[in-house]
């Protein structure tokens, strides 16, 4: 038999045209009964469908932030752990130095070690009233003191790559502060009136400069912190008398000057 004949036969077959009304009616009733619950389900589903993308984004964002924070915390902890294994750093920390800050850039961590704050007593005890309460870090004995350090830690290789001591930079800063303090004092009217020209400057005390980490691009460096209140004290000696002048370095002015004979006179009066 040919294909065309089969097609013709198929097209000519008498087809049933049956409809069962009772089924049609019952199914219609069933559909009407189900309409409202299905509509409610669809509405809930639609709301859910709209919320899902927002929810997914929120979860991803949360995971991203959480992961970043965690990895940052992990890197900081790891960098500290590696730094603490270095003998030199360990030694400084045992002597009271502290890890002030750590910054991580490109798998490298920069650890800033800050020297302990030392209250320095002058070599030759000055009268009680002339002692300054400011913390000093001046090298009077000539021995090299620890002025802080910046350690570079390679987290992947788990080793301290480089340690840069901050003492030279700190000393330069101290020297420039002292020069500035002396210049301000010598120009002031109080010093010109009270201190004779031949007076000897026994000591100039300034606060030890503190450093902080500064990130610029992919490099991190230690830069001096800007102090809001920076003071210096200068001790003059002349004729068996001593005077202490206090200088405000920020305001660039002499705050006060007190001499030993004035203090003794005041005490006798009392």
């Amino acid at each position, binding site marked *: *038999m040919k*294909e065309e004949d*089969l*097609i013709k*036969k*198929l*097209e000519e*077959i*008498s*087809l*049933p*045209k*049956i*409809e*069962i*009304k*009772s*089924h*049609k*009616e*019952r*199914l*219609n*009733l*069933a*559909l*009407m*009964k*189900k*309409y*409202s619950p*299905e*509509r409610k*389900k*669809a*509405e809930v*589903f*639609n709301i859910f469908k709209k919320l899902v993308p927002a929810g997914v984004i929120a979860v991803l964002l949360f995971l991203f932030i959480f992961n970043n924070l965690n990895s940052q915390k992990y890197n900081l902890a790891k960098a500290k752990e590696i730094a603490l294994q270095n003998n030199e750093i360990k030694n400084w920390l045992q002597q009271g130095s502290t890890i002030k800050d750590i910054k991580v850039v490109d798998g490298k961590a920069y650890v800033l070690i800050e020297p302990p704050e030392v209250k320095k007593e002058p070599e030759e005890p000055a009268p009680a009233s002339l002692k300054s309460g400011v913390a000093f870090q001046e090298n009077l004995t000539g021995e090299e003191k620890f002025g802080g350090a910046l350690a570079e830690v390679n987290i992947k290789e788990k080793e301290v790559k480089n340690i840069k001591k901050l003492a030279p930079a700190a000393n330069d800063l101290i020297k420039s502060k002292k020069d500035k303090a002396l210049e301000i004092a010598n120009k002031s009217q109080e010093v010109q009136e009270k201190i004779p020209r031949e007076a000897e400057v026994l000591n100039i005390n300034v606060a030890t400069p503190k450093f902080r980490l500064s990130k610029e691009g992919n490099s991190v460096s230690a830069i001096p912190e800007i102090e809001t209140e920076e003071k210096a004290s200068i001790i003059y000696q002349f004729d068996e008398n001593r005077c202490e002048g206090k200088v405000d370095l920020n305001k660039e002015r002499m705050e006060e000057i007190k001499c030993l004979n004035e203090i003794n006179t005041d005490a006798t009066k009392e």
Partner: protein
Amino acid sequence: MLKEEKELIERAKKDPKAFSELYEKYYSQIFGYILKRVANLEIAQDVTSETFLKALKNLWQFQWRNIPFSSWLYRIANNEIVNYFRKQKGKKVSLEKIAEPISADNIEIEFIEAQEELKKHQDFLKAQEKISKLDIKYQEVIVLRFFEKKQIKEISEILGKKEGTIKSLLHRGIEKLKDEFFETL
């Protein structure tokens, strides 16, 4: 025409009466198609029920793509026919559970009458028996083309296949049917 149908569907998403209109419009067509596929009144009723219940469930996901609503219903019907035979002993839709009962006597009488009517079409029943032995993909295209008198384009819309694929399925289906069909006719 299509525009009106689109509006009716949109209304049906909000108003059960509009959905009832859609049902009235397409019930006979879909029941007829399923009967031509299964040649059994009881199964045709069950599959038709499943088809419309599925259509109702998915009505709010239906998106208009310039294809008649009937094509979507035919597609659901095709899936339900496959599902029915896959789980022949699976659960059947019991309208008694979800609809108000209608006098059992009336249903029985109507059903017997419908059975008698179906028996009158012996050529169809024999042809359908042979067609039902073919793969589902051939059954679908042959019934849609020769019993539902659908154009190739419509069949392609219903089955979601290219027109070329439909032509080739039809050709191969006829070839397979040819050998055994007319021995018994």
